[in-house]
């Protein structure tokens, strides 16, 4: 299981939005009333988060490169789930894992920093199975 590097920042607090997963089925009856019942619990919560990555962090150096390597190697371009301290500390989810969906969108701001917008799904760790690994040769 991949772990969010300590050298990368947590999401920006003032720019995050969420679409909660809905596992309920709705049926409109003839009277107009709606019947609602739960069907499973697989739908995860979809968060849109922003990360401010510095090109020359005083301690960690080029955070944009660290993120690119983490996304490519550890997350396998978003296939693998990862754990992060900010999932519990900032978003309030205990015992949950996250996964990047879609390619992160990067906004360049000169040579100083990048603003990365990423869609992340968050789900209970107990509902997540082991990562899929493919035998790949000659991976740098």
């Amino acid at each position: 299981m991949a772990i969010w590097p300590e050298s990368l920042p947590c999401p920006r607090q003032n720019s995050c939005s969420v679409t909660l997963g809905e596992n309920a089925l709705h049926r409109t009856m003839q009277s107009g009333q709606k019947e609602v019942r739960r069907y499973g619990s697989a739908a995860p919560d979809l968060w849109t988060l922003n990360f401010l990555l510095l090109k020359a962090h005083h301690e960690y150096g080029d955070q944009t490169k660290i993120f690119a390597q983490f996304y490519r190697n550890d997350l396998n371009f978003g296939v693998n789930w990862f754990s992060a301290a900010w999932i519990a500390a900032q978003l309030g989810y205990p015992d949950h894992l996250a996964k990047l969906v879609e390619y992160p969108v990067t906004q360049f701001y000169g040579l100083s920093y990048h603003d990365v917008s990423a869609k992340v799904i968050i789900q209970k760790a107990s509902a997540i199975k082991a990562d899929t690994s493919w035998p790949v040769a000659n991976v740098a």
Partner: protein
Amino acid sequence: MIAWPESLPQCPAREFQLVPINGQADAEEQLSPYRVRTYPEHSATFSFKALSTEEMQALRTFYDLTLNQCAPFTAPWLPQCGLEHHFCQCSGPPTIERTGTHWSVSLPVVIYSGVPMDEAGNITYGERE
């Protein structure tokens, strides 16, 4: 019936609108006059603002686990709106937004009518004031 937890805000932001729905038994039927129901359902969206992360997660957990995303529940602010014998059911997942340093949660519900009863348990349905 599940009651709204006391650990959550006891009243939403006072800027919601109650929209009556399903007031007519059959809107398509060509009867004159239309058959109407005394207590139609209402749709509303209750907003809770300036919540901390813990309160936001408590509300989300109440919707996801306690209510199981579909169970009806009673709310303490409904009697103040003139809906003494009514209860709610979520019509969709809550919408969560970040507003500055806090969270704002909007919960879409359908408000149903129960059976109006006095303290002795007698039905007061149909009484004129």
